[in-house]
């Protein structure tokens, strides 16, 4: 019962924090330096992981589907399947999970440490708005970083697929890329942009906001010294992954269920 109440309290706090951040968006120009610092830190710390995981995801996807398609002589469609899977689902999802485990945990630990070492209390006493000073730059940075990294993940995944398709399934590289590009040309309702690309980017944006909001909330609410910081970090990663998966389902339903 206590755990349920804690969860409801945290959820309420997360929504309040997100609402407070949205209200403070006009202050973003004032926080541009901190936001760019965060963006740079997040980007540098995870870009190699995203590239590595994205590459192998594309390769695995190609191998799995390629073998099955070869049985029906349809291996020419591999480029289509890999491009759509990466853009719609795998790119944003993998990027979100990586960011939750790296940037999200680091963020929760950083703010948690600030909490238990009285730095957050010091900011409060100095009349420094911590949502404005700490949370706004972090949420905006992750909301920007996640789509950018998802694009990298999509691209490297499609390239990894090309490697496997040409070397192990005998599909010509040009044919693979042609089918991949063609698959992503389907226009959507939004500015005639390719739907599969912008829905993927929108998902990544939402995942970035989810990760940062949960990590900031868990960090700010940390209690009880090093143990509390550890608990906040663990909770931030766990909750982020759960919320990413749930949000992923609803976003997919929103964009594709009527098709």
């Amino acid at each position: 019962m206590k755990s349920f109440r804690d969860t409801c309290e945290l959820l309420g706090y997360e929504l309040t924090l997100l609402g407070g951040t949205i209200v403070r968006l006009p202050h973003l120009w004032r926080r541009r330096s901190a936001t760019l610092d965060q963006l740079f830190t997040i980007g540098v710390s995870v870009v190699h992981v995203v590239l590595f995981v994205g590459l192998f995801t594309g390769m695995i996807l190609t191998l799995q589907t390629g073998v099955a398609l070869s049985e029906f002589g349809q291996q020419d469609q591999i480029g289509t399947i890999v491009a759509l899977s990466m853009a719609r689902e795998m790119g944003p999802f993998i990027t979100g999970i990586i960011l939750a485990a790296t940037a999200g945990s680091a963020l929760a630990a950083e703010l948690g440490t600030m909490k238990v070492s009285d730095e957050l209390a010091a900011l409060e006493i100095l009349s420094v708005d911590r949502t404005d000073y700490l949370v706004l730059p972090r949420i905006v940075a992750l909301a920007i970083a996640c789509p950018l990294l998802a694009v990298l993940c999509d691209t490297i995944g499609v390239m990894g697929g090309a490697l496997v398709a040409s070397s192990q399934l005998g599909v010509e590289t040009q044919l693979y890329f042609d089918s991949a590009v063609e698959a992503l040309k389907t226009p959507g309702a939004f500015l005639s942009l390719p739907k599969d690309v912008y829905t993927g980017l929108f998902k990544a944006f939402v995942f970035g906001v989810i990760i940062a909001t949960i990590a900031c909330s868990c960090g700010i609410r940390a209690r009880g010294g090093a143990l509390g910081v550890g608990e906040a970090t663990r909770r931030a990663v766990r909750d982020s992954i759960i919320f990413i998966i749930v949000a992923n389902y609803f976003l997919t339903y929103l964009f594709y269920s009527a098709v």
Partner: protein
Amino acid sequence: MDATTRTATEPSVEPADRSASGDAVIRFENVVKVLGGRRVLDGLNFEVPRGETLVIMGPSGTGKSVTLRHIVGLMQPDEGRVVVDGSDMSTIKKKELAELRKRTGYLFQDGALINWLNVGENVALPLRENTRASDDEIHQRVVEKLELVRLPDIWDKMPGELSGGMRKRVGLARALVTDPQIVLYDEPNAGLDPETSNTINTLMRDLADRLDITSVVVTHLVSCVRTVADRVILLDGGGVVVDLPKDEFLSSDNERLRRFLGQDPD
């Protein structure tokens, strides 16, 4: 039992007569605070007149830091009232609280410096966030406060490069940069060697004398009381058990006080 000494069995006490004036900057009225099922503060009463330096002593876990946190609104009483500069901290509006905090400095046990800002940026933080002062003005005021705490040449150092004493002094410079009327010190000597501890004590006394600041100091050290205090209260059992001017406090034969100070009551 004289008018200003009480026993632990009487936690709810009236404020000392000498300080029950209309000029009290800080007033605790029957404050109760329950933490983890324990009544940490149990009917706490005391006042701090303007310009006075009050030292709060007491065994660990008797709510000294909790008392300080009530003064700046980091905690709210479960019962009773805390009145600071005429404002009831339970009902104070957010904007008024922010204004009150701008007039209040708070030195945390470890300085609580923001670890990604250098010393200069840490001290400048409240000015940058809450005022429209120009970069030159801010620079001038930060330099002035760093000189005041006798650390003139460490602007570019990061908090991780500072010793415990230096971190506290930088924390003090940050607390003073807005020229507060009230300064609260939470264990300013904890973890410091005697020499650095004396430097901090002298600094606190100088500031109180030169800037006419109302101060509340939480400490375990008699040396701090000797240098800094105008008046001393001893907390125990959730309330004030001794409330005396410094000289009387140091020479008192109150049994509870002597036991706390590690002196044989006999």
